[in-house]
């Protein structure tokens, strides 16, 4: 009788590790604020043509370096362009650079790290030495050198940042694979006759995804700063196309009489980078395998 009563009680469905991680993420206020701002900037980038009040390239000689007014909320720049419109459009270059360059790093870094960690031997040694060599060059110096040789443009800046950020993903993926491949379930997968390819892709890869996602989120923050840095130096987005970094490069020459030209693009970079850092920190805590 008692057994029947016990069976009738509806037990809550056990949550999957992914659902538990998502719940932990949602509970982290910082991560949610970060996510909200990321969504805000993504919306700015996608709907820039509707949101921006003016054409970001339209000049007006009667409105040169005007302080913020009701007509121009963020003021105007040295050739009378609306700073708010350029900041809105600049979000597109920054987010594109962040996502594309980290996409390049992931596309190269994760398979190469997987290969090094899984195959081992001389392949691992060769890949590790090349990774060490790339990590020996400070990230921005390497990105500047690559962008310099490839030529100044937003596309080349994204490629340069992507390549410069790749070794971090190689090293992380390799380390994760080394930890995962000694687990019992990998041994079991091998024992039942799975091929190396299948084990690497179906059993090892899914188990290294969580730390890679965390690293990718934080890498987007670094890539946004790197793109702004390259554009600030004149190696990224080329004028007159709007980019926060190149806006700051121009603004530094007018800091005495038009400080608003510097404040808004810089604040936008800061907010976007902060958002990805908050989200990355939250994801790290939520996806920490010790909690799952």
């Amino acid at each position: 009788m008692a057994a029947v009563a016990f069976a009738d009680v509806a037990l809550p469905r056990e949550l999957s590790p992914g659902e538990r991680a998502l719940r932990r993420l949602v509970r982290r206020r910082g991560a949610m604020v970060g996510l909200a701002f990321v969504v805000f900037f993504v919306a700015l980038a996608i709907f820039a043509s509707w949101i921006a009040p003016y054409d970001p390239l339209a000049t007006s000689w009667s409105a040169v370096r005007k302080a913020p007014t009701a007509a121009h909320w963020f003021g105007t720049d040295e050739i009378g362009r609306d700073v708010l419109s350029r900041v809105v459009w600049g979000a597109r270059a920054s987010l594109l650079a962040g996502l594309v360059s980290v996409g390049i790093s992931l596309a190269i870094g994760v398979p190469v790290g997987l290969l090094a960690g899984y195959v081992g031997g001389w392949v691992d040694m060769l890949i590790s030495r090349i990774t060490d060599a790339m990590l020996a060059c400070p990230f921005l110096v390497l990105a500047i050198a690559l962008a310099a040789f490839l030529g100044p443009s937003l596309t080349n800046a994204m490629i340069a940042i992507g390549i410069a950020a790749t070794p971090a993903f190689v090293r992380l993926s390799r380390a994760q694979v080394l930890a995962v491949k000694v687990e019992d379930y990998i041994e079991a997968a091998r024992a039942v006759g799975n091929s190396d390819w299948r084990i690497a892709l179906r059993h090892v890869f899914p188990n290294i995804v969580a730390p890679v996602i965390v690293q990718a989120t934080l890498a987007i923050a670094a890539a946004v700063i790197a793109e702004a840095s390259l554009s600030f130096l004149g190696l990224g987005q080329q004028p007159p196309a709007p980019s926060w970094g190149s806006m700051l490069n121009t603004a530094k020459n007018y800091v005495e009489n038009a400080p608003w030209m510097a404040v808004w693009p810089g604040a936008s970079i800061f907010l976007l980078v902060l958002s990805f850092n908050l989200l990355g920190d939250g994801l790290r805590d939520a996806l920490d395998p010790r909690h799952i």
Partner: protein
Amino acid sequence: MSFILRRLGAIVPTLFFVSVMIFGLQQLLPGDPAIAMAGEERDPNVVAYLRGKFHLDEPLPVRYGYWLKGVVQGDLGESVRIQRPVTELIVEKLPVTLELAGIAMAIALVIGISAGIVSAVYKDTWIDYVANVFALWGLSTPNFWLGILLILFFAVRLGWFPASGYVSPFEDLGENLRSMILPAFVLGNALAAVLMRHTRSAMLQVLSSDYVRTARAKGLDERVVILRHALRNALIPVVTLTALQLGELLSGAVLTEQVFSIPGFGKLIVDAVFNRDYSVVQGVVLFTASAYIVLNLLADVAYVLINPRMRA
């Protein structure tokens, strides 16, 4: 000793791959490298001279051999624009950047370690919260923007510091320091945040260890427990991290020197990029990477020397 020899042996292949990578940069130039390096005029005589100088008619491995031979002998090539050896330019500009990086490091150590200790000791209080916000601010602020804001406030509005420029310490030490404070603070800002986070986490780990509990149980003053017992051990990983971060400081110096018009190492590479002075770009990257590898080695050795358990 055997550890140091092993580490020295390990850096040889890394240096080899660094040299291959930096030599390979030249191959990224679209079209004929001699034409790309000859500048806007593309004078046929200059092109022919460059082709001969860089052995561009030879196969790639042979060219690499010539280049590496020069590098090993301290010859990093010659600046196409100012016709001076790259090594000479690096030696001339490096002290300025080292001074900037040194002051930035000092600022970062003072702020970062103090904030890290206070944050760990007052964990989960408003002090900890403020310190963490400060760290997030440091990690998220682009240093060229911070530089512009500081120029606006402290140089333009208050007039306390010069907005840009550099005065040699041998000319006027006071003016030199005045011109270095803002750029050094800008450069040290992100590093202070990194150091704060590491010091905090190392201190939290140490503060919960048995020997700290024992020290407290003996009735020692809390300040003695924190500064003499906990901090000494917590600083071990921070010391190695600090050495590794010098490479990042060189990276940050590129932008900081650009904002404050400081004629250092960073400005050298930026000017070289815009003048298509590719030998200088290669030389600066090679020097930076080699310096980073050596610093990495020194950090490892320092870690072994200051951590008795590693010696055993």
